[in-house]
C-alpha cells in the first residue's frame, strides 16, 4: 500500500506543480536581489538575506526561511487534507477498503506519503535555491579572498562541509515540523469528505497559532503552539549550535504527530464510509 501511495504521489501533476511553485518565490527574490544589489541590512528582512549577497551557498537557508511561514505549510495542508477526503471524493476510498486494504494501513501509507512529499518539497527547494544562489551570488570566494567560507549568524566562519551538515540538520528539522502540522491536516481529512475543507481547517489552525504567538496574553500556551518552534532551525547556523529550542521543537512536533495521527486513527478505524 505504501508503494501504491508513492506511485500516486509521483504520478500526480498537482504534486509537481506545487513543488515548482514553492521554488519560484525564492528564485524570484534571488533575481531581484542580484539585479538591484539591495540586500536588507543585517538584522532586518528575512533570515540570512543580508548574508547571501556575500555567499550564495547560504541561499538555501534564506529560501527555506521565505517559504516556511506560509507557502510550505500551504502545500502540506493541501496534500495532507486531500489524503482521505480526496479519496472519498473520487470514490476510490471504498474500493481500496474492499480490495481489501485494512484501514490502519491506508492511514499509515498516507502518513508516509506525507513525509515523503515534505522531504521532496524541502529538498527540491534547497537544491534549486543552492543552484540559483551559486549562479547569482557566487561562492563568496571573490569577496573574502578565501575559498567558500560562509559566516554563521554568530560571526564565525563555517567550512563548506560544516555548512552542508548544518543545512541537512535544518532540512530534517523543517520536515519534522511540517509532518507535525500535516498530521493535523490528515486528521481533518478523516473528518470530512471535502479535501478543500480539511486543508482550510488546517490553515485556520496555522493562522490562529501564528496570531497567538505574537499575543502577550497567550504567553502561557505559547510553548505548546504548533508554529512556535518552526523557525528554530535557524539555531543550527549559530556557533555553537543553540540546541535548547531545537530539542523543544522536536519534542513538541512529536507530540502533535502522536496526538493527531492517533485521533485520525481512532476516527477512521470506526467510521462509516458513506462516500
Amino acid at each position, binding site marked *: 500500500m505504501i508503494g501504491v501511495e508513492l506511485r500516486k504521489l509521483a504520478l500526480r501533476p498537482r504534486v509537481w506543480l506545487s513543488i515548482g511553485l514553492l521554488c519560484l518565490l525564492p528564485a524570484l527574490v534571488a533575481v531581484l536581489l542580484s539585479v538591484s544589489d539591495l540586500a536588507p541590512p543585517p538584522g532586518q528582512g528575512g533570515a540570512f538575506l543580508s548574508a547571501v549577497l556575500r555567499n550564495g551557498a547560504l541561499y538555501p537557508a534564506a529560501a527555506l526561511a521565505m517559504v516556511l511561514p506560509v507557502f510550505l505549510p500551504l502545500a502540506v495542508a493541501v496534500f495532507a487534507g486531500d489524503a482521505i477526503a480526496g479519496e472519498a471524493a473520487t470514490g476510490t476510498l471504498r474500493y481500496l477498503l*474492499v480490495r481489501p*486494504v485494512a484501514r490502519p494501513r491506508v492511514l499509515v501509507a498516507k502518513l508516509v506519503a506525507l513525509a515523503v512529499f515534505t522531504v521532496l518539497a524541502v529538498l527540491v527547494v534547497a537544491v534549486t535555491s543552492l543552484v540559483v544562489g551559486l549562479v547569482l551570488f557566487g561562492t563568496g570566494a571573490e569577496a573574502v579572498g578565501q575559498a567558500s567560507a560562509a559566516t554563521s549568524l554568530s560571526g564565525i566562519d563555517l567550512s563548506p562541509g560544516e555548512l552542508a551538515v548544518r543545512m541537512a540538520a535544518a532540512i530534517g528539522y523543517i520536515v519534522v515540523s511540517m509532518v507535525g502540522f500535516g498530521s493535523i491536516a490528515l486528521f481533518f481529512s478523516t473528518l470530512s469528505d471535502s479535501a478543500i475543507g480539511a486543508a482550510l481547517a488546517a490553515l485556520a489552525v496555522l493562522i490562529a497559532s501564528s496570531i497567538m504567538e505574537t499575543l502577550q496574553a497567550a504567553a502561557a500556551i505559547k510553548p505548546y503552539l504548533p508554529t512556535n518552534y518552526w523557525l528554530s532551525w535557524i539555531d543550527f547556523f549559530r556557533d555553537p549550535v543553540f540546541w535548547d529550542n531545537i530539542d523543544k521543537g522536536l519534542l513538541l512536533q512529536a507530540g502533535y504527530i502522536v496526538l493527531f495521527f492517533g485521533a485520525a486513527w481512532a476516527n477512521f478505524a470506526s467510521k462509516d464510509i458513506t462516500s
Partner: protein
Amino acid sequence: MIRTRGLTKRFGRIVAVDSVDLDVAEGDRFGFLGPNGSGKTTLVRMLLGLVHATAGEIEVLGKSMPRNAAKVLPQVGAMVEGPGAYPHLSGRRNLAMFDAAGPGGGRRGRADRVESALAQVGLSGVDRRPVSAYSLGMRQRLGLAAALLRAPRLLILDEPTNGLDPKGIREIRDLLVALNEAGTTVFLSSHLLAEVEQLCTRVAVVDRGRMVLQDSLAALLAPTGHVLVRSPDAAQVVALLDGQVVARDGDRLVVRHADVAGLNADLVGRGLRVSGIEAERRTLEQVVLDSTGASGDRIDGPTGGEDR
C-alpha cells in the same frame, strides 16, 4: 454465500435498514430490488464492512463480517454506488493501482490480470487517455473490471448498468450470466425492474429499510389461476361461465380457471370465437408495487389539511 439476521442500521434517528434477514445461496443470480432511499446501498456497504451495523449479524462466504474482512473480501468483487477511479490516470494504470493495493497483487502477473479484466468488460482496446476523459459507460465498465480483478467467487454489484446504452446493458448481462454459469454468485442491487427480471433467478424487495419479499423469480411470476380471454362473443362467454368471470372490459375477460387449453377447447366447442387466450401472470412491476409503498423520493405534504 450471504446471510444476514436482524441486520439493522440507524443513522441518528433515521432507521436506514430495519431488521433484514437476507439469504443468498451459492450459484444464485440474486436481485435486490427497492425504490430509491430504501436502504439498498447501506445494506451493501454493511456486507462489505464499509458501514458498521447497529445490530444484527452478517455472514459472507460462511464467515462473519466485518470481523473476517481480510479473509472474505479477497474473494468478493464489488461495485458500490458507481465506479471510482483516479481521474488523472489511465484506466489500465487505475486497475494496476487497485491490483497492487490488495492482497495477492504481486508484480508478477499483474499485467495479465489487468488485461483479462479489461477484456471481460470490453475495454481491451482502451488507450492511455486519463479516466477523466471517459464516458459514463466506459467508467462503468472500468468499475466492473476492477471488481473482476481477482476472479471473485461472489460479485456484489450496485446499479452496474447505470449509464450504459442498451447494447452495453445487454453485453454486461451476458457477461454476468456467463460468470454465473462458471460458478460466480451474483448479487445485484438495482431499482431497475427490467434489469432484475431479465437477469436474476431470485429476488428480494426492500422498502423503507424493511425486507418485504424474498423468493425465487419463478414463484413470484407463477400463473395467478386466472385466464385472460379475448372474444368477440364476450357476452355469451359471460353467460356460459357464470360466476367464473372476475372482470370484463369490452371484449376482454378475466376468467378464474386453472387450465388454459381446456377452457379454450370448451369455448370453441360451443361455437364461441376466441381471438386471444393466455394464463395471467403478474409482472415483476406489479409484484414490487404491491409490496412497497410510495416512491422513496416522493415527499407529500401533511394529509387531511384544509385546501388553500
